[in-house]
């Protein structure tokens, strides 16, 4: 590996023990990848220092426990205890923990809430922005074209590369925590031009309109191309709306490992199909028509049979202000059924605006709850006694039934709101 003078000096310990340990980890990681150098980054999104009961207990007797110990031994995979200094690069904390205003609703114990608050205070004290969302791009962190980033959260990574044309790999807990201290990340994968070109062509033969349509298309594409880079050609209604990309990318990153996609004439690095492939031929051409859409819908709904719905969860990825407004409009003059719960998840930033706009109150008055920081899959929190959920997110449908051993219906936001109001699933197959 070729190191710059600054990188070598960090590795030699001239910038302190913490940066040395972070560099050691990044060098091991870069060697594993086969990267030849690092690239500077000033935009890191991770989960530094975040703690669960297992880690808390595991490190209790190592280095005296506490958050410096967890950061040293787990985040930096160091064998030595170090004191965590201020972040060296702009860093935000992604989703995790508990909504500080509604932790009891989420079923957190006072102990686990205290741990979550303490780890948050620790990391905030190191200069990390507590955005607590899987959608940092809706909460003030919007990198520009060409920016090198080090982001976790697969749905945010795919948005960052595809829609914003900034550059990030799917980083992990340890690499983002190390990048937070050093401001460097291996120059590999999506940081490099040639890696960003398309591999598979998806020919979409009908117009993709609703958010639900975009979600199903994403789920199909992820399964079809796995971790490769799809280029889509077709007609897309509302293709400029970020909500549609948010649902498409999250779905493609959960059924497969899609970290970047191109839509010809829509996404910034795909002025044309040819440009998206960089003049190369697609490895495969994959058709997507109404039959494929129906198969995807049936596949997403294969884990549900009971029409009685007791939980509706919206906000995967975290809802935008527009989506919260949309849910309010659908609930106007109606109330969530006494036999059902409606939880909507968003970021603290969007919640603050929703409060100001009176949207949070509208939801409360209709019997719904607006929650922040997490989601049901992340916190593994669902209303007590839930057997059947309804979801408008293909990603959440992919994960939640497996985590919680419940049934889950997938449909449009309107189908989900109807289910919350009536307590019954009446979703219509496309």
């Amino acid at each position, binding site marked *: 590996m070729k190191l710059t003078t600054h990188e070598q000096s960090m590795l030699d310990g001239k910038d302190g023990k913490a940066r040395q340990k972070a560099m050691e*980890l990044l060098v*091991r*990681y870069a060697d*594993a*990848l*086969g990267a030849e150098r690092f690239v500077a980054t000033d935009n890191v999104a991770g989960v530094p220092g975040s703690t669960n009961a*297992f*880690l808390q207990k*595991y490190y209790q007797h190592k280095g005296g426990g506490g958050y410096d110990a967890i950061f040293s031994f*787990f985040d930096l*995979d160091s064998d030595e205890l170090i004191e965590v200094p201020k972040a060296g690069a702009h860093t935000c904390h992604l989703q995790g923990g508990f909504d500080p205003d509604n932790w009891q609703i989420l079923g957190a114990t006072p102990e686990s809430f205290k741990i979550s608050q303490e780890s948050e205070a620790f990391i905030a004290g190191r200069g990390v922005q507590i955005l607590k969302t899987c959608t940092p791009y809706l909460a003030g962190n919007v990198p520009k074209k060409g920016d090198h980033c080090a982001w*976790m*959260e*697969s749905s945010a*990574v795919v948005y960052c590369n595809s829609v914003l044309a900034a550059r990030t*790999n*799917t*980083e*992990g*807990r*340890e*690499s983002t925590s190390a990048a937070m201290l050093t401001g460097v990340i291996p120059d*590999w*994968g999506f940081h490099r031009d040639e890696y960003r070109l398309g591999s598979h062509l998806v020919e979409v033969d009908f117009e993709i309109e609703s958010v639900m349509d975009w979600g199903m298309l994403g789920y199909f594409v992820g399964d079809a191309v*796995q*971790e490769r880079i799809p280029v889509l050609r077709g007609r897309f209604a509302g293709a400029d709306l970020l909500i549609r990309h948010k649902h498409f990318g999250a779905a493609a*990153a*959960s059924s*497969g*490992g899609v970290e970047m996609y191109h839509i010809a004439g829509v996404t910034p690095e795909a002025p044309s199909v040819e440009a998206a492939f960089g003049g190369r031929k697609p490895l495969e051409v994959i058709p997507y028509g109404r039959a494929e859409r129906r198969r995807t819908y049936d596949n997403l709904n294969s*884990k549900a049979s009971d029409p009685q719905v007791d939980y509706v969860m919206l906000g995967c990825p975290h809802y935008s202000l527009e989506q919260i407004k949309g849910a309010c409009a659908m609930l106007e003059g109606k109330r969530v059924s006494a036999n059902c719960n409606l939880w909507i998840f968003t970021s603290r930033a969007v919640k603050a605006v929703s409060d100001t706009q009176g949207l949070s109150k509208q939801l409360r008055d209709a019997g719904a709850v607006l929650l922040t920081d997490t989601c049901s*899959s992340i916190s593994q929190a669902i209303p007590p006694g839930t057997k059947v959920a309804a979801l408008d997110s293909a990603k959440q449908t*992919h*994960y939640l*039934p*497996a*985590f919680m051993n419940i049934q889950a219906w997938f449909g449009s936001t309107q189908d989900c709101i109807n289910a919350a109001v009536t307590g019954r699933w009446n979703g219509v197959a496309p």
Partner: protein
Amino acid sequence: MSADTLVLKGRKVVGGVAEGEALVTRQTISGWGGVNPMLGIVTETRHELRGVSFKDKILVFPGAKGSSAWSAMFHMARLAGAAPKALLFNEMTTKVALGAVVMRIPAITDFDRNPLEVIETGDWVKVDADRGLVEVRKAALRTGS
């Protein structure tokens, strides 16, 4: 080396040596939502290894998929004593590279032959990642059947 031993050559991802029984899957493995790191078993609903333990196995698989918490999940598996002994895989990603690093186990990729085609579950495998070498003793031959 006896006639019943196959040798594969690849590129070192993480150095070190290990030997053990192979666990082979043709499906990519998800970390968060795909495995129970405390028990070292695959939990993904439709995975062919669902319920199967990878603890102390030489895990032979196409690569990693899914959430960015892949490394953290397998890192916890190491702490819980439930990690595999080595990783042999085809598709390099940041997830599997970082996961191998923090599990601190030998890992090899970029093989001269597809390990998914020549290694079967139950084969005895010696991994020398520093030299990029994998020695496979076939289970069928080992038991003389």
